[in-house]
């Protein structure tokens, strides 16, 4: 096999068994790798009845075919399975250094079931894989665990670990690589915690890889690396991180403010901007393996109430989640909150979204001091967030911690009083920090259609509406106006297929904007020898999207779940998007029609599945 290695490590923690598995080659060709291959594996071999936190639940880490090939942005990996936060299919992507190391060791992924009888870790050193005792790491934060593992095994061993939030089964617990790069979304840190799995450590001593056409690939890689490095977007992100354009977003109404109640806060844009972070707190720029974009930040807040030593800094989502979204424009506080989430191992988007909901509920009187154990939740009160709320959530401490550790939707269900109406999510996943009313109506559609729930990186719609990419070879040439529904379903059907390809190839959306459709096809053909043309690649992307939706259908989701909350669809109250209605139902109906999907079941029609070579899958749902 070329590109991927064809071998996956299977770990049964209950039995203490480690096996090498060779999935059928056809799965790779049809589902690529990353979240696509994870979904296929889960569909074929996972227990779809299992509770996500039960021993039977399957947790899958999967690389893409380009991992370790020294191509900018292409050495990420995916985690997938049933999300404990949403109850249905979830996946999450992570950069950093784990994927290439796993690939060099000879594996495409790790599939984990069972529950260890004591805290454990999986150790992979080239062809050897074993389950080791990790009792002495249990209870430690991510930073300390990471350092301890490196001391024990060596500084070049790469780590994936959970913190106290994962151990305490916080529903949006994250998994971190090297203490900096996160599988943030959908709560897979809790799945690891439920399996008594503190971490995974991998080390490879060789770097051999089989590529279909090495010379052609080397030439293409040279060209792409240069283009990615020199792209304007890359230089802007290198300079000021992923929050480089936060001011522009604040102006257009893309940045959500106080739980999506406002789209305009003039001073906030500059206060939280990437350039402000650079000026005030940046000490170094950092990157994922082989990436020339270098959008990652290392920061230090030298003094003040939110002082933190030099270490991982926040990216855009964290800055807004712990900034505008909860009514604060204190950048030092956002740095501190982000650092705490890193160390506890918690998704900053869901944490910020849940706290924002709680602050609004408190203001309305729907959440009372009785529910919060006496803690007062006020917009912008970052001292309380940092000192009380985040530790309470991560450690499930007190009434407040117990409530908010379940996420905003479960919390709203528990307290009632109509508070579900002002949660901000789709399919149970708290929305990222882009408000579709200001950012673009197409984003409302793709948030709702995304199999894992509201997600801005499931596909490139955000960038497409912004004008940052276009793909004439596959019919995506529209000059879109963000705040209308014009040509949005037509763009979305292309975007979701391309997004499925990006997330299965594990190619970073910040880097791959320079990759044209002919480049994509050439990459797959030179690395993996798929023999694709653009049509076949896009058909594969749609197949992956449809499969994830079939999994969700088996979990009980239907077309009704392809929705946003009333708060997210009400016309904006101020700023550039003020008063503009999103034609959500119109866009959704058109999208279903264009995708050949059943408007009630929310899955592809039998003939659509057939066109995508999915007759076997079809027979399990139709």
């Amino acid at each position: 096999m070329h590109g991927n290695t064809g071998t996956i490590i299977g770990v049964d923690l209950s039995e203490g068994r480690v096996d090498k598995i060779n999935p059928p080659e056809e799965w790779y060709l049809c589902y690529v790798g990353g979240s696509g291959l994870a979904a296929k594996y889960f569909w074929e071999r996972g227990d779809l009845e299992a509770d996500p936190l039960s021993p039977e639940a399957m947790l899958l880490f999967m690389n893409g075919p380009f991992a370790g090939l020294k191509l900018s942005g292409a050495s990420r990996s995916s985690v997938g399975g049933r999300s404990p936060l949403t109850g249905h299919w979830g996946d999450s992507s992570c950069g950093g250094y784990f994927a290439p190391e796993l690939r060099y060791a000879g594996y495409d992924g790790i599939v984990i079931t069972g529950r260890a009888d004591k805290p454990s870790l999986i150790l992979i050193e080239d062809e050897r894989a074993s389950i080791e005792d990790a009792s002495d790491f249990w209870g430690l934060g991510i930073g300390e665990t990471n350092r301890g593992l490196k001391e024990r095994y060596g500084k070049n061993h790469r780590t994936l670990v959970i913190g106290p939030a994962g151990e305490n089964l916080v529903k949006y617990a994250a998994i971190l690589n090297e203490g900096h790069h996160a599988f943030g979304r959908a709560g897979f840190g809790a799945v690891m915690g439920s399996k008594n799995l503190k971490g995974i450590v991998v080390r490879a001593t060789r770097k051999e890889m089989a590529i279909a056409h090495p010379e052609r690939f080397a030439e293409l890689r040279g060209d792409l690396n240069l283009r990615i490095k020199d792209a304007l977007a890359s230089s802007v992100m290198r300079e000021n991180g992923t929050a480089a354009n936060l001011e522009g977003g604040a102006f257009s109404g893309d940045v959500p403010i106080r739980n999506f109640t406002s789209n305009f806060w003039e001073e906030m844009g500059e206060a939280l901007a990437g350039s402000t972070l650079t000026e005030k707190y940046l000490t170094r720029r950092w990157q994922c393996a082989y990436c020339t974009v270098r959008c990652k930040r290392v920061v230090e807040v030298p003094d003040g109430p939110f002082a933190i030593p030099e270490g991982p800094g926040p990216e855009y989502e964290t800055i807004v989640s712990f900034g505008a979204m909860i009514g604060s424009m204190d950048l030092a506080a956002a740095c501190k909150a982000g650092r705490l989430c890193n160390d506890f191992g918690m998704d900053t988007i869901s944490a910020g979204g849940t706290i924002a909901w709680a602050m609004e509920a408190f203001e309305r009187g729907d959440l009372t001091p009785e529910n919060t154990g006496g803690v007062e939740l006020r917009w912008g009160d970052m001292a309380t967030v940092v000192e009380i709320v985040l530790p309470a959530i991560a450690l499930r401490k007190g009434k407040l911690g117990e409530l908010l550790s379940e996420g905003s939707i479960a919390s709203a269900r528990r307290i009632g009083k109509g508070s579900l109406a002002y949660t901000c999510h789709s399919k149970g996943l708290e929305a990222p920090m882009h408000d579709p009313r200001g950012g673009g109506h197409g984003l409302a559609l793709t948030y709702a259609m995304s199999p894992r729930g509201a997600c801005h990186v499931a596909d490139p719609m955000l960038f497409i509406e912004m004008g940052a990419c276009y793909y004439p070879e596959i019919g995506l040439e529209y000059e879109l106006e963000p705040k209308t529904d014009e040509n949005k379903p037509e763009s979305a059907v292309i975007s979701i297929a391309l997004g499925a390809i990006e997330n299965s190839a594990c190619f970073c959306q910040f880097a791959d904007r320079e990759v044209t459709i002919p480049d994509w096809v050439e990459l797959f053909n030179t690395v993996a020898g798929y023999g694709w043309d653009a049509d076949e690649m896009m058909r594969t992307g749609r197949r992956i999207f449809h499969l994830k939706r079939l999994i969700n259908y088996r979990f009980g989701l239907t077309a009704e779940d392809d929705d946003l909350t009333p708060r997210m669809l009400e016309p904006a109250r101020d700023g550039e998007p003020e008063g503009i209605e999103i034609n959500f139902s119109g866009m959704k109906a058109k999208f279903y029609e264009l995708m050949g999907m059943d408007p009630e079941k929310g899955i592809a029609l039998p003939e659509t599945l057939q066109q995508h070579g999915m007759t076997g899958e079809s027979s399990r749902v139709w």
Partner: protein
Amino acid sequence: MEYWKDETEPITAFLKLFEEAKKDEELSSGLKKVNQLIWFDYTEDGPNCSFHIDCRGGKIESGAGKPSETPDLIMSLSADDAHRSWSNKLNPVMAITRRKIRVKGSATGLLKLAPKLKKVATIYEGVLRDLGWQDKILK
């Protein structure tokens, strides 16, 4: 060129635009923060079709043609697209993606000014009116 009869017209309009923009407190402090020597290069429409602004060190100066010093940032586009851009009728991100605008150098500072394009467009409309070029105003 669709909007201009010769290469001097756009430069006249754009230089006047910057003179007016300087008088606006918000725009002038925004420009000073950019702190760069920028060359707006429209030479695809004629060898003299360009101008520069120098907003380094707390000043804002503009002049026709290429600057004598090496610019920190060069924005190359057609004079027509520049007209659309100052009129806020051209999405700058889209124009860059489609290579209608070619950027050389760090555009980070200029990015901070993008949200202010609406205000610039209002001033630009006034400039066109003052010059008696109402027919050039894009609606």
